[in-house]
């Protein structure tokens, strides 16, 4: 029967409805609640003020990432940052929440460690007071970012009132060309539909290019769903997903027979053939070029081979908004992007701070030097990634090229810690947002893939990775 054909999202949604609240809102059960230091202190205060407790501390996990130093972790110089980190430690002690603090061997960016620890599993509902929670959708989970009032709500009730989003399937057909990555897929999509193009929707990403991606690549795509306005982004779990979950040191995954049973259940999650989406879009992956943002919104993006656009020729943006963006970015229309020189290159973040990202960047950097006058900073997403990378000798490759190899954290993605751009410094960044001032007041951010970032660090300006001789090996 037609009605029985469900999408991946609908299957997860219907399994988590606790009660109907009104015509448009349900009470949704939350399987995992991830917490970090910036968006939680006021929520814990709210609980104390109302005399409420944490309903399920066993489903709640915390880490410190946004504020942490990436050089010397033994001392946090900024007293306000330190107070925030101490507040999280205090709150976790009081409410008996497992905290992965700065001394923990598995500390890291919340969206990197969730999957690493096996907290992120298919079919789950996952929330965190952070918009990039959509990352976890790569495992076929419904994962969404929430505000601090909602953090308090989930702490108190393990539930969240939710209006059902609409579904939006994006199919990336065919195989990706060499030099084109998961980051380019998502930037291309955001450019095509705009930064509010998917507001009110959840994405399901499908197609050969998605199936071909590793779990890390899938996380990169899902991570930036929010940059298109979507509440979440999902990818159907498959053997790669189960393989990732089954291997490695993941203390919170089910084991043995329980895991086998779980996998059998997870295999029922993918969208049924013939299920209807509210919206669909197909993109030919075989024709994609490496993407670079030129403006102050992730939707202000183009092929690296395209010049800086004319202000009146950007779909979805007013001439005035593009003019403001170009003025802020210090760019002149018509300039080839490959002529644009950078001062700083940042490799890291919850978008591209995973082991595979570092391997891809290291492969490009190996045996080369960072261009004169360019600073390259490499920040592993977690302690696990850091140790793995050091085990593989990637840190040496970066250091020999002249890069700064750091400790794990959010770092220059949002520049809450001392890792910041100076006014008018131009940065090729593997992070997720090129908003004004995002990486430091007056800083100019260009979003790119880790491979593009590495090649840019070597050349000192953007390059077309597909034709760059350094990518021949």
């Amino acid at each position, binding site marked *: 029967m037609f009605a029985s054909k469900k999408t991946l999202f609908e299957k997860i949604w219907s*399994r988590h409805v606790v*009660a109907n609240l*009104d*015509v*448009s*809102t349900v*009470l949704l*059960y939350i399987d995992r609640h991830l917490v970090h230091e*910036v*968006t939680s*202190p006021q929520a814990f*205060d709210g609980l104390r003020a109302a005399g409420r407790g944490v*309903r399920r501390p*066993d*489903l709640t996990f915390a880490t410190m990432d*946004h504020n942490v130093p990436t050089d010397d972790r033994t001392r946090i110089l*900024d007293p*306000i940052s330190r*107070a*925030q980190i101490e*507040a999280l430690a205090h709150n976790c002690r009081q409410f008996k929440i497992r905290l992965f603090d700065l001394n923990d061997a598995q500390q890291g960016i919340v969206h990197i460690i969730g999957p690493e620890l*096996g*907290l992120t*599993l298919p079919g789950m509902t996952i929330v965190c*007071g*952070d*918009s990039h929670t959509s990352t976890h959708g790569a495992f076929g989970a419904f994962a969404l*970012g*929430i*505000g601090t*009032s*909602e953090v*308090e*709500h989930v702490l*108190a*009730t*393990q539930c969240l009132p939710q209006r059902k989003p609409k579904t939006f399937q994006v199919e990336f057909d065919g195989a990706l060309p060499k030099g084109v990555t998961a980051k380019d897929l998502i930037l291309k999509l955001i450019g095509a*539909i*705009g*930064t*509010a*193009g998917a*507001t*009110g929707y959840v994405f399901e990403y499908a197609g050969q290019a998605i199936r071909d991606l590793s779990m890390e690549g899938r996380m990169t795509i899902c991570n930036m769903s*929010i940059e298109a306005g979507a509440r979440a982004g999902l990818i159907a779990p498959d053997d790669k997903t189960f393989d990732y979950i089954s291997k490695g040191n993941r203390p*919170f995954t*089910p*084991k043995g027979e*329980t895991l086998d049973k779980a996998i059998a259940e997870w295999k029922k999650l993918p969208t049924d053939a013939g299920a209807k989406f509210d919206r669909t879009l197909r993109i030919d992956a075989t024709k994609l070029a490496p993407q670079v943002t030129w403006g102050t*919104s992730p939707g202000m993006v183009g092929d690296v081979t395209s010049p800086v656009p004319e202000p009146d020729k950007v779909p*979805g943006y*007013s001439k005035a*908004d593009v003019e403001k963006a170009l003025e802020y970015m210090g760019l002149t229309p018509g300039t080839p992007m490959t002529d644009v020189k950078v001062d700083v290159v940042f490799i890291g973040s919850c978008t591209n701070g995973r082991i595979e990202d570092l391997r891809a960047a290291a492969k490009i950097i190996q045996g080369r030097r960072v261009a004169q006058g360019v600073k390259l900073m490499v920040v592993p997403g977690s302690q696990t990634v850091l140790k793995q990378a050091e085990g593989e000798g990637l840190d040496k490759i970066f250091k020999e090229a002249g890069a700064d190899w750091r400790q794990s954290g959010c770092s220059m993605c*949002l520049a*809450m810690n001392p890792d910041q751009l100076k006014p008018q410094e131009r940065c090729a960044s593997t992070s997720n*947002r090129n*908003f*004004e*001032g*995002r990486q430091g007041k007056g800083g100019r951010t260009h979003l790119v893939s880790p491979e593009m970032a590495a090649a840019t660090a070597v050349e000192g300006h953007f390059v077309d990775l597909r034709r760059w001789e350094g990518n021949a090996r």
Partner: protein
Amino acid sequence: MKPFKTHRGVVVPLNRANVDTDQIIPKQFLKSIQRTGFGRNLFQDWRYLPDGRNNPDFPLNQERFADASILVTGNNFGCGSSREHAVWALTEYGIRVILAPSKKRDGGVVPAFADIFKNNALKNGILAIEMPSKEIDEIFEAITCYHGLHATVDLEKQTIVFHASKEFSFKFQIDQAIRERLLKGLDDIGLTLQKEEAIGEYERQHNPSPGAR
């Protein structure tokens, strides 16, 4: 939460699309563990010059918009980071109502507000009203014509009246559940806790513990 029934105040324009939450409250102010103290840093990088003085070109600094409480802006307001600090900064400054347009694009609609921001606004009693582009354009125009334009928003009647020399008004649409919660100033957590039995039942049926599945 304080109930929202009607509100009268000065209308201030911020005529840009895609105003992100990094812009509303930059990250260096997110280190506070309080809910208060964000108002003076609202729109920090636009509102103040590098030397710390007020930027005279920024509407919030202009005398005619002093004490403004109704913000009219472009579509996709509040995009980006989930930081509720953006809403706390707006409320502390005194903003109670935000008006923004939904826009047509490629056969779809670009909504007035980003998803998480809209939720955060609601939780803090800010009324976020989505209006047709044409009406927002008329409001922008009226602001340039009338010095210190006031408006009255009536959530019960779903109207907004602009007190220009010749008054004009619009009806607005809002989700009825959201309207109800704002009108009554309901505590969301309290409402959910009324369903405690259903939550317990759900937990018994689906064991959500780590390692259990």
